[in-house]
């Protein structure tokens, strides 16, 4: 079947695209989709938000430029939680459905990317701040790769939290996901945080199982992931990560604080939503009126982020969170002196039903990120690989490596993939 037809069909069934071009530019190109927070020249980019309605970037993000140079054509922009604010991809104007069971969520925030990969097999360039590649990859049964912070240029990414955002990939196989990562990675003078990879470390053939994360996982998901360890046949030892809960709170404080400054630029003038205004209406009134277009979760995070760094609370919340981040990184790096990496379930449970998600409080939502947040806070590379099913829904196993040890992550991800 024609690729565009397949994409449109998937979108009609599962709500996974924000934009599909009328035709693919150039013939014989390899296809790739891009999460809607990535700028693709001439294609609308809203990052899941109504405040960016009408924005058409006049340039390509560095990752898109690199993919195009390597012979890829962007065949779709994919739906996401507003600015990446979510675990289930329900915080936006177009909510994707899980291709394995449309009454369940795809996971977020790169839900559209994972959904389109699962439905069509076309790889995707996605992005993770606290788990936005692993969560939807696990829920939709595809491979998701989140690289080390700084390996991939963020130029042209509509940012959520600058010290946490990482552009990565999704595909149906480990080889394809890492090959796409090789295409888009590399330093870029347009992103001062993009950096050179460190040398490859010698393998120790030993992985660590963080007890506190496994304990917070639903029993059936946990048992399924244990089967992966048995099948892999590698030495695996239990370790303790005593900062798991602190990592979760530290992550949310830092992410929200950074988001609340990043989103200050959306005032409805230079790009995106541009409302009408009367002759007496002042700039501040117009600014405030336009920002009402933010969705509920975006407003909640703007308020919390602003609160955490405001005078009188900055030391207690933001600065404290940054210090706790140091401890989390230290604890993880300490274990990585002895082990090649960590292995955990990708998510604490299978993809929830929309009716179940509606009953969760915001705090319960945030706690669903316990498997992914510590490693994202530390900027460690990781991959989620599908490994069997529970109740007919995919389960993902997550393998995490040391900074810039993507080759090690790929090696273990391949073993998981081969033994499933």
């Amino acid at each position, binding site marked *: 079947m024609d690729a565009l037809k397949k994409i449109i069909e998937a979108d009609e069934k599962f709500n996974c695209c924000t934009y599909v071009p009328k035709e693919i530019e150039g013939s014989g190109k390899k296809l790739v989709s891009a999460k809607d927070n990535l700028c693709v020249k001439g294609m609308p980019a809203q990052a899941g938000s109504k405040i960016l309605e009408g924005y*058409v970037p006049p340039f390509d993000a560095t990752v898109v430029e690199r993919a195009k140079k390597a012979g890829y054509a962007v065949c779709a922009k994919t739906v996401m939680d507003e600015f990446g604010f979510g675990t289930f991809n329900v915080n936006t104007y177009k909510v994707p459905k899980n291709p394995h069971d449309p009454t369940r969520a795809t996971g977020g925030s790169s839900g559209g990317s994972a959904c389109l990969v699962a439905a069509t097999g076309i790889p995707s360039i996605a992005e993770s701040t606290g788990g936005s590649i692993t969560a939807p990859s696990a829920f939709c049964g595809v491979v998701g790769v989140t690289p080390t912070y700084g390996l991939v240029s963020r130029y042209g990414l509509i940012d959520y939290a600058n010290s946490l955002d990482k552009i990565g990939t999704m595909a149906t196989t480990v080889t394809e996901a890492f090959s796409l990562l090789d295409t888009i990675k590399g330093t870029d003078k347009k992103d001062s945080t993009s950096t050179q990879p460190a040398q490859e470390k010698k393998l120790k053939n030993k992985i660590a199982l963080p007890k506190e994360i496994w304990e917070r996982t639903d029993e059936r998901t946990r048992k399924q992931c244990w089967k992966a360890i048995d099948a892999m046949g590698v030495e695996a030892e239990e370790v303790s990560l005593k900062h798991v809960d602190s990592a979760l709170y*530290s992550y949310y404080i830092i992410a929200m604080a950074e988001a609340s400054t990043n989103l200050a630029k959306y005032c409805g003038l230079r790009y995106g939503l541009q409302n009408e205004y009367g002759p007496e209406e002042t700039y501040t009134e117009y600014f405030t009126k336009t920002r009402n277009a933010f969705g509920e979760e975006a407003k909640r995070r*703007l308020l919390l982020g602003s609160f955490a760094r405001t005078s009188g609370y900055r030391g207690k919340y933001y600065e404290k*969170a940054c*210090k706790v981040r140091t401890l989390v990184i230290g604890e993880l790096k300490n274990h990585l002196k002895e082990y090649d990496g960590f292995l955990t379930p990708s998510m604490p449970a299978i993809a929830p039903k929309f009716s179940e998600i509606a009953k969760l409080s915001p705090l319960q939502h945030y706690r669903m990120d316990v498997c992914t947040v510590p490693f994202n806070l530390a900027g460690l590379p990781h991959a989620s690989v599908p490994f069997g099913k529970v109740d007919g829904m995919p389960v993902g196993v997550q393998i995490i490596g040391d900074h810039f040890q993507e080759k090690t992550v790929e090696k273990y991800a391949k073993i998981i993939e081969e033994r499933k």
Partner: protein
Amino acid sequence: MKKELERIAAQQRLQLSEEEAGKFAPQLEEITKAFSELDRVDTSNTKPSFHPIEIETIFREDEAQTPSKPTENHQRKEKGYLKGPRILK
């Protein structure tokens, strides 16, 4: 929390409806209480991390760059200028 909420909403240029304020106030209370769990972590000799890896400061020559059509998405233009609402009453 309600007073704090009004203050930070104004800082963020957000005009919350009564319904939104009523919903957010207890949620923010619950979430910030959870965040306060960090008080139990001893960070007395710990430096903050603003990035997960060490970031070097990068310099470039002080030369003009050509941005890619930065005003292309602005809808209201007049005589080569961008038009916006008035600043003063």
